[in-house]
């Protein structure tokens, strides 16, 4: 389930740079004519493809720091309606620093006859603000062609003049379910510009030509077969791309050096320099608020809670390309900010009481890409805060009103972040949570009556990401909460349902569900009643059968789940069949369920446990995972049969 506060906080921190990704470029007129004919596509490129990139040529000329001109030209043949998005051109831009010209999109039928042509004047010009962002400078141009018959070929050309850059973007070579016949990308840049590049999921090398004091690096790919991103696979681990950067850049008029992580960190540091302090009066107030607190760590915890209680997260993408935070004094007065502003504010609070802390830029959302130590590049979309206490480093997620002090969760854990220190940027790993930190513990009491009616009390204790889920759920309307519980726990529909949030203390969120059933058994006949012997399903998911899994399967986090169910049998009944105990093993975990019948109390007690120690399942273990989960579901499905005592 989504954690609202967290998913909100992914900012378009890199929105401007994203503009340059996915763009391929070229000079027009040099594409062979047969590329407009659908009939010339080799069969091997049609397999698994919704579209075929027939030709792509991108030519980038880097004129100087922060300045580049891009010529883009591509030809795509769309094979079916799942490739329709290829007939939509969306060009995000910024009015000041980014200009598109010579835009043309031409559409050809199967035989290569042109049937339609679009220009810039045909395009919709809109504000690129999402629902959750309240303000942004970003805009986009877009045009869509409606395809009447397949195959159809779409040719796109444009020129882009960019005057603000951090890195030089990337060539995202291949898209999902698209094959490539021919594509090239070239960058012309001064030979002393400190140009560098990094390959991801592909190992092609450039061809370089030198002319005067510039070098042109050209990459080419040919005949790449289409593939489909598998479920629960991570895009950054699968798709081929090449990233580019050089030494000096200019971003929104400010100069920077991106030769190292350290130098990029200095750039960010400088952006924040004039906004990272509170007024002296407020600093004095903050000191007064904390002067009775003994340790720095306790002070930090106090101030973190103070911020959580008083500030709220609002997405705002203004200022220097969404890179510079709103001043700490602004947050202090207005009581809101985005991830940058809130992290910067938290840092200012700590500074007021002489606790050093570091602004940390990172990629947010579960299992996202860590920063590459060998290739400084700005692919970040979020900011958190790092407080380097002597013996233990503490991390703070400043956009959340519910995170525990010092815990991050799957949103930002277990990856490299860039710390902005006095000496510039430094890459540091965020902590990784283990399964005991993501617990779902449930204690269920089910009391059955002879007529099949029943009462159940389900007590759930959740920590880590489970805690976020359960906190997130409490914002829903009551009826929605009930439905969600029925779905995620696979509850049988009760006649009465009460939800009691008990407490949220020390990172443990407790919830109680009180349920009543008019008929809990599955079926009754003669003296016997047949029961599903639990109220909730501890494991309520399986994964699909796949012939050959190619990429790793990702869960959001490791997990430890347990459920103890105590069933009071109706008076006058005894156990006829107890479900079998089972113990199942998987390379990264295990599932155990045990049933005990206490004849004296006339109670059946079942204890079930599910552990997953690692959230990344290697592709070659996928089949084991699938069979393991199927076996768990089967084990969970076994029935309890009771009968009237003779």
């Amino acid at each position, binding site marked *: 389930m989504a954690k609202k506060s967290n998913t909100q906080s992914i900012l378009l921190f890199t929105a401007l740079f994203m503009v340059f990704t996915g763009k391929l470029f070229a000079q027009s007129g040099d594409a062979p004519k047969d590329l407009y004919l659908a009939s010339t596509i080799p069969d091997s490129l049609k397999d698994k493809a919704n579209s075929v990139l027939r030709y792509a040529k991108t030519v980038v000329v880097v004129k100087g720091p922060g300045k580049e001109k891009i010529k883009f030209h591509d030809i795509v043949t769309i094979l079916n309606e799942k490739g329709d998005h290829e007939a939509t051109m969306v060009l995000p831009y910024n009015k000041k620093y980014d200009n598109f010209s010579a835009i043309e999109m031409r559409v050809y039928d199967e035989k290569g006859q042109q049937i*339609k042509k679009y220009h810039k004047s045909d395009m919709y010009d809109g504000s690129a603000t999402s629902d959750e962002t309240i303000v942004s400078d970003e805009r986009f141009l877009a045009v869509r062609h409606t395809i009447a018959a397949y195959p159809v070929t779409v040719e796109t050309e444009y020129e882009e003049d960019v005057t603000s850059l951090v890195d030089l973007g990337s060539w995202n070579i291949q898209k999902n379910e698209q094959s490539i016949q021919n594509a090239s990308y070239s960058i012309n840049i001064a030979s002393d510009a400190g140009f560098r590049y990094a390959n991801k999921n592909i190992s092609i090398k450039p061809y370089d030509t030198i002319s005067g004091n510039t070098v042109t690096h050209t990459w080419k790919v040919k005949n790449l077969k289409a593939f489909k991103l598998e479920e629960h696979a991570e895009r950054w681990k699968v798709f081929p791309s090449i990233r580019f950067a050089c030494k000096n850049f200019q971003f929104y008029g400010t100069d920077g050096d991106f030769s190292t992580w350290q130098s990029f960190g200095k750039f960010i540091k400088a952006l924040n320099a004039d906004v990272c302090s509170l007024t002296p009066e407020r600093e004095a107030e903050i000191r007064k608020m904390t002067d009775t607190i003994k340790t720095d760590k306790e002070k930090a915890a106090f101030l973190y809670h103070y911020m959580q209680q008083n500030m709220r997260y609002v997405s705002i993408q203004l200022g220097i390309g969404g890179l510079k935070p709103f001043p700490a004094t602004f947050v202090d007065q207005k009581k809101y900010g985005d991830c940058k502003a809130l992290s910067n504010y938290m840092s200012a609070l700590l500074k007021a009481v002489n606790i050093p802390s570091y602004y940390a830029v990172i990629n947010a959302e579960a299992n996202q890409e860590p920063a590459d130590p060998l290739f400084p590049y700005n692919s970040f979309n979020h900011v958190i805060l790092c407080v380097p206490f002597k013996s233990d480093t503490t991390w703070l997620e400043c956009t959340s009103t519910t995170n525990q002090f010092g815990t991050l969760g799957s949103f930002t854990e277990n990856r490299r972040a860039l710390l902005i220190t006095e000496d510039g940027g430094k890459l540091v790993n965020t902590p990784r949570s283990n399964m005991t930190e993501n617990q779902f513990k449930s204690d269920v009491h089910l009391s059955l009556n002879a007529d099949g009616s029943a009462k159940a009390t389900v007590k759930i204790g959740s920590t880590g990401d489970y805690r976020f889920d359960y906190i997130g759920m409490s914002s829903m309307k009551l009826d929605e909460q009930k439905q969600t519980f029925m779905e995620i726990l696979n509850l049988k*529909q009760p006649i009465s349902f009460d939800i009691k949030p008990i407490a949220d203390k020390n990172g443990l969120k407790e919830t109680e569900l009180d349920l009543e059933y008019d008929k809990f058994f599955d079926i009754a006949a003669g003296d016997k009643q047949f029961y599903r012997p639990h109220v909730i399903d501890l494991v309520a998911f399986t994964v699909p059968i796949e012939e050959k899994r190619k990429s790793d399967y990702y869960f959001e986090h490791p997990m430890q789940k347990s459920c103890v169910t105590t069933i009071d049998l109706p008076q006058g009944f005894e156990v006829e*069949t107890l479900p079998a105990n089972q113990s199942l093993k998987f390379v990264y975990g295990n599932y155990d369920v045990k049933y005990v019948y206490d004849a004296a109390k006339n109670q059946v007690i079942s204890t079930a446990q599910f552990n997953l120690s690692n959230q990344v399942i290697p592709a070659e273990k996928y089949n084991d995972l699938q069979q393991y989960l199927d076996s768990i579901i089967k084990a969970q499905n076994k029935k309890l049969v009771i009968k009237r005592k003779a």
Partner: protein
Amino acid sequence: MNKILLAAFFSAAFSAVVAQSTQPAIAVIQPFGKIDQADLDLKACDFEKDANAEVLFIKGNIYFGADLGTITEEVHKRIKIFNTNGNDQANIKIEYYSGNHLEYISGIQAETINMVDGKQEITKLDKKLIYTKNIDKETSEVTFSMPNVKPGCIIEYKYNLNANSFVDMPDLYFQEKIPVRYCEYSTSIPDIFYFREIPHLTQSFVKRTKSEDGRSLLDGGQAFPYVQENETKGMSNIHSLADEPYMSSFHDNLQCIRFQLVSIKPIGGFSKSYSDTWSKVGGRLIDDEDFGGQLKRKINGEEVIIEKAKSFKTDDEKIAYIFGEVKNTMKWNGSDRWYTNDGTYRAWENKTGNSTEINLILYHLLKQSGVDAYPMVISTREHGKVDPYYTSLVQFNRAVVFVPVDSAKRYILDATGKYNVYNETPAEALNSTGLYIDKSKNIYDIIHIKKDNPVRQAVVISAEIKPNGKIEGTAQISNTSYNRIEAVELYKKDGEKKYIDYLRDNDNNLKISALKFDNMEIDTLPLIQNVDFNMDLAASDENYIYVNPNIFTPLKSNPFLSDNRMTDIDFAYRRSYSISGTYKIPAGYKSDALPKSVSMVMPDKSFSFKRLVAEQDGVIVVRFSINYNVPEYSKEFYPEFHDFFKKMNEMMNEQIVLKKS
């Protein structure tokens, strides 16, 4: 528009005449900045305890400008935030139509009120933090984020929405996504304009007053007297509008009043009637270049199609042929308007167009081929139901073709959907009203569009239970009407593998070894799916085998879990399901528990469920017959409905138990 009104205006107000007035019990609207302590202390919404925030009040004043050429809406809104989940309510967005400078926003004031040390603390919004954003050519948005927002605080803001047009009367919305404690609108409309109210309200007003002022409009020293009609309407305790399963469009459910300008009373030598009957609206359709003007337009190469169509003997064959030609040639661009954009000629050339372009081409070809067809405008279900008393084209968003075959049979043709068929009314058009026209016959008429017969799905299972806790057999699934269309669409769009996953309901225990379709390409016959399957009966153990006979049905789970219901239930059409299975008991086993034969009918016969179970000669037969006899059902009877669906779901999933003997 202003030019037809006279410029000078003197507010020569005469004595007001109070017509009627009912006093509300409580003073629910307060001036800006005056906050009730009780509201700051408020912990939850009285009538919706689980709300994260509540609108305390909305006050809107709508009046005409000095020259009667503009309309201003003054809005004052106050919101209580109960907890952090309600914080988002403090991010304010006001969208308006900025194309041609039609509308603009002015006079924004906003503040947040908190309790600090037992005193009310007011934090004003910094005007510099009000942003105006061009969304696109036609719309803009004013956005601001309230300062100092904490659980328990109250935020309030006011602004004016100004329209440079006397027809642009704002819609009055009483309902929101959060509960509204009180909402009041006052309108002051010169009797020069006659606006008809189009109410969509399920609650009654707690306040309603009317009065009149005598005024006059002056021009060149000449006075033109008129009466200003003032009306105030207030409603309290309005529940939030949620998304519910099987709910019709948001538009159909939101409580609001819309206005239709019907006429302008002549003063100073201008006269314009906006008054409409449906036939006048139909006349406007005919006169409109982008509708009537398209009906007779030739399209390239039409002679070939028309000639071929004429070679068919029956109208049905002609219709089927032309429908297929248009459907297969044209791709809908996703746009729904009652008028054409590029026109039929260009659309046909481009092989793509909006729904009206596609269907007017269809109409034209049918007409030219001698079929008695009519162009008809409708409103799609998402767009909302047509109010038969609101005689305005704005209610419609799509043209289709109406063919009255005989007194019992009529076709409504829509060639926009690739999987639509000519002999089935498109589901998007159901339960609303269409306006069809024929100038030569002087026909301008409305009809109610509905589907009379229930849409059927039948499943026949013949299976053998194996002693190792498996089951193996065949299923024949027969789909008619919309079920058929949906199945064909799913299969053709997503391919066989995905379709099989859908049939399996992604259950890894269920495997389909063969799937064969009959009648996939014959629109007039049911789609038959022949399935060979086997399944692990997961619950089975060494003594018992458990079989759930709810296989291959669309009724596995109950969508109506909610205890409360805010909107009517809308199934769109009547439904009928029949599931019949025979299960052979393996040797060495005998039945230990069987579901009972039962039948259950709602008191008003709206829904019925029947299950027949029998055992004979080592074979168990289970038959379900389920009927939804109404397409729509009132939320008033939700408790009974909820109960019925809960019981039905339980009975659908009751299992057969076999025991080793």
